[in-house]
């Protein structure tokens, strides 16, 4: 993959941005998530977090087993606030 490959589609983050951050010393997904907003979009990190985990392993001596996934937060998919509020006409 080249540097311009988008690794997080929700936040438009490129592989270069991710690699630069790992070089800076950000080597946990929790730290990367908060610095880049990676995994904070509508997909909840389903695409990008695995890619980021693999990049950390490639660039450091960590193994996939040592990489901790950030805490999963609800909801799994986006829900309109009107639906959550129980508005019949929003369904």
């Amino acid at each position: 993959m080249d540097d311009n490959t988008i690794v997080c589609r929700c936040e438009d983050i490129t592989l270069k941005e991710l690699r630069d951050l790992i070089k800076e010393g950000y080597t946990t997904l929790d730290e990367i998530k908060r610095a880049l907003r990676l995994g904070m979009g509508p997909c909840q990190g389903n695409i990008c977090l695995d890619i980021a985990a693999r990049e950390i392993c490639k660039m450091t001596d960590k193994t996939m087993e040592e990489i901790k996934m950030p805490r999963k937060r609800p909801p799994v998919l986006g829900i309109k606030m009107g639906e959550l509020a129980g508005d019949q006409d929003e369904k």
Partner: protein
Amino acid sequence: MKSKAEIVIIGGGVIGASIAYNLADKGMKDIVVLEQNYIASGSTGSCGAGIRQQWGTKMNCLLSRKSMEIFENMNEILDTKRDIELKQGGYLLLAFSKKELDQFKENVKLQHRYGIPSELLTVKEAKEIVPQLNTEGITGATYCPTDGHANPFRVTQAYVEAAQRKGVEFYTYTKAEDIITEKGKIKKVITDQGEIQTNKVVNAAGGFSKEVSQMAGIEIPTKSERHEILVTEQVNPILKPMVMSFSYNIYCQQTPDGSFVMGYGDPDEPESHNIKSSWQFLEEMSKKATHLLPFLKKIRVIRQWAGLYNITPDAQPILDEATDLEGFFMAVGFSGHGFMIAPMTGILMSEMILGEELSIDIELDLERFENDRLILEPSVV
């Protein structure tokens, strides 16, 4: 890990980082910060990211106004690598009764005394600032155009990096486990990664302030409780200020990236360290928010989370040195507004620790809770 330090700061949130930076900036050497997880992993990183100056006590007004001046110049002061994402879209505070509006009038008088550019608004004027607002039941409002938002991770990281350039060492994933004292003096801090000899400790442990104080044998009247937040998908900018009400119990702001961040305080929330999300919050929050700002009905919630408020009986922080333990400093109990007053807190604590004259006369000592000198902050969510 160092085996000796001039001072050990427990807590790598925005408060600990701000204190560390200000101490190093004044020339102190051998400063160590301990963080049990990663930087800003506790209350700082889960906060609502708002910065407000419209307060109801002198202390909170002064701390927040002077902190805002620093936020306004933070990128330059700290030579930040990544912009702190300051957005000054104002805070619109809504009153829902005559009594609440009367309190607002008092607050505005107080705020003006300390140089905060807030103003009292009629319902019509409030609607001009937020045209989408459902004004049902609203009796009036106050507005401060320079209130707003900053990114808590970026701000904390900016303090950390500026402090590191001045020699401060941050040990992340390192938990303080005990503080050893002898005859009213601190000897060392024991961590899960080793021991550090020191005579000075700062408790900046946020949600764990009580536990850290107890390590040193000091009892403090702080309690932690869960506060939940949700965030929506990103949309074009449509809401300029933070919309907030104490009686209706809500805050909601559109952040610079376009998402809405909102929360409310559950009056029945028990004291705990629970930071799990609840479906009850999701439902109640949606009802409250869509009633006040109906356009939110069409916007999707994408994530919810929770963090800890560390609350004192008067909703104002404790900034003090323990009387019974020399060198034990506390910057705790921020009651949900630590992020927004962190810049000034760092300055004041560094002055207190170095024995300098304080740049603000603060009345935030621990003894106030025993002597019944409490000045209750009326304006909290």
